């Protein structure tokens, strides 16, 4: 079974966002990590490989330093990795281009299953659905369980107010919710082995794409949320304070 996992390099969740003098987001003092949900996608891929055999290939679109994240995927147990890196693609934010490039890279690997994270915690651009659409295959998002039965897979996915059990023919794209599994940590041996595994870097041209897939939407400016100021602390005994809070929420904030 061939399994492709899409992994994105993102800012650590501790990161404070700083806008630099050039008006862009400054990434110079930021720790970069694998998007947390992509760890769940990786884990599921490795579990499937342990059960059915085959190959796990990690694929990413990003800046050159996204290689580090792919090395992490290799250290977790991926067999090889592909990075699409091209100066024409705005890293992290050109979702149209990323989806096109990912779909092209993925289709060349002829996978049975494509796993992604539920959401990328930086831009969250609904990439998996787009990749599935380009490939013309089904997508099941926010999955909490995945079982492969022959040429089909049955997945449980979270929906508003419950869950659904869905059967799809393979190949298909599945996006991992956190409760799907507990991602393994790379072992020291895994990290050593990862250094020798294949990590290919491709440009758009290598994929037979050109810059017409880039910049369909452009970011024309960044801003930070208006800083909140702590408001007022309501004094008094619990019952008193609660009464005053309720009064303020009604009279001042006009909510309840």
């Amino acid at each position, binding site marked *: 079974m061939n399994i492709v996992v899409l992994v994105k390099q993102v*800012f650590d*969740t*501790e990161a*404070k*966002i700083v806008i630099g003098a050039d008006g862009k987001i400054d990434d110079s003092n930021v720790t970069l990590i694998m998007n947390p*949900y992509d760890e769940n996608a990786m884990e599921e891929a490795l579990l499937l490989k342990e059960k059915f055999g085959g190959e796990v290939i990690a694929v990413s679109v990003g800046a050159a330093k996204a290689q580090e994240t792919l090395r992490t995927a290799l250290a977790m147990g991926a067999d090889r990795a592909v990075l699409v890196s091209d100066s024409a693609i705005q890293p992290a*934010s050109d*979702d149209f281009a990323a*989806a096109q490039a990912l779909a092209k890279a993925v289709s060349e690997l002829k996978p049975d299953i494509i796993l992604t994270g539920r959401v990328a*915690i930086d*831009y969250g*651009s*609904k*990439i998996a*659905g*787009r990749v*599935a*659409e380009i490939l013309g295959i*089904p*997508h099941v*998002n926010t999955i909490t369980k995945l079982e492969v039965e022959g040429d089909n897979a*049955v997945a449980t996915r*979270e929906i*508003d*107010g*419950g*869950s*659904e*059990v*869905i*059967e*799809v*023919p393979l190949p298909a794209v599945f996006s991992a*919710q956190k*409760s799907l599994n507990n991602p393994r940590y790379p072992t020291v041996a895994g990290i050593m082995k990862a250094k020798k595994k294949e990590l290919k870097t491709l440009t758009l041209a290598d994929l037979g794409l050109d810059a017409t897939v880039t910049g369909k*939407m*452009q*970011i*024309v*400016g*960044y*801003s930070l*949320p208006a800083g*909140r100021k*702590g*408001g*007022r*602390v*309501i004094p008094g005994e*619990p*019952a008193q*304070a*609660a*009464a005053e*809070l*309720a009064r*303020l*929420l009604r009279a001042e*904030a006009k*909510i309840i």
Partner: protein
Amino acid sequence: MAKGIWVFIEQSKGSIRKVSLELLSQGRKLADEKGEELAAVVLGQGVGALAGEAAKYGADKVFVADDAKLASYSTGAYTSVFAKLIRENEPNFVMIGNTAIGKDLAPRVATRAGVDVAIDCVAVEPDDANYVTLTRPIYAGKAFAKVVSSGARPVMATIRPNTFPVSEPVSRDAEVINAKVDVDPADLRTILKDLISQATGRPELTEANIIVSGGRGMKGPENYVILEELADCLGAAVGASRAAVDSGWREHKFQVGQTGKTVSPTLYIACGISGAIQHLAGMGSSKVIVAINKDPEANIFQVADYGIVGDLFQVVPALTEECKKLKA
């Protein structure tokens, strides 16, 4: 010639969902400013009556696709019908609610139409050169990006619920256009085998007007009942911090924060939550924040409009009593 502003209509139990009314209301304003038509797009079975409702909230035109294949939402059938409508009518701008369905449908439809889509927008401004400028939160709300689509049409966006107010309904007629429904068989390969309902009777976190949220200070899963009682009085959803989720007290789907849900309710009541950066990222854009925490130094007070320093096990039930008095 490309024309018009479109709103995808989501429905539940025979009426239009609030988020779609919000988009119609805003779409009406934008259409007037642009001197263009506002169209509603209704897909489903037995949904003809919704056309009249869409008109009341501003639609000049309603595309209705009424078919058994559309009775309940499916990615394939809905994408097929919606993308064909776009191809045939070439609207300028398409808005879809950033709901579970919207998030599933929009990327599919946009990709099939050959355009990009801006996800989870919180502002839409008319723009002469690019039709509209869209604002979307990034890094779970730690920053915002302004986005334009300079060339391709339609511009597509999903819009976060609670972004726009719903206008007063007015009586007006809309032209109803019955859309053809021919679904590509390739779009019908997904089989729904089972539906497990865990309906709580409470609103969805991401769409709720009020959220009562509990963290590690709740001490155990059994204590959430006091938050649920407050939530029931307020008509609120119940959220949690990651510490509460990691402790196994609440399901991950109720987690608020950078690796949970990003929410922007009118009122967020944080109980026994310290206010870590990842939590604030997910709820910092709430209109009014209330913090109940026994530690006066807790970071959550830095962002709270109203704070009570005290034991939540005393304050929360007292607040529920006050709420009941107000609602009585």
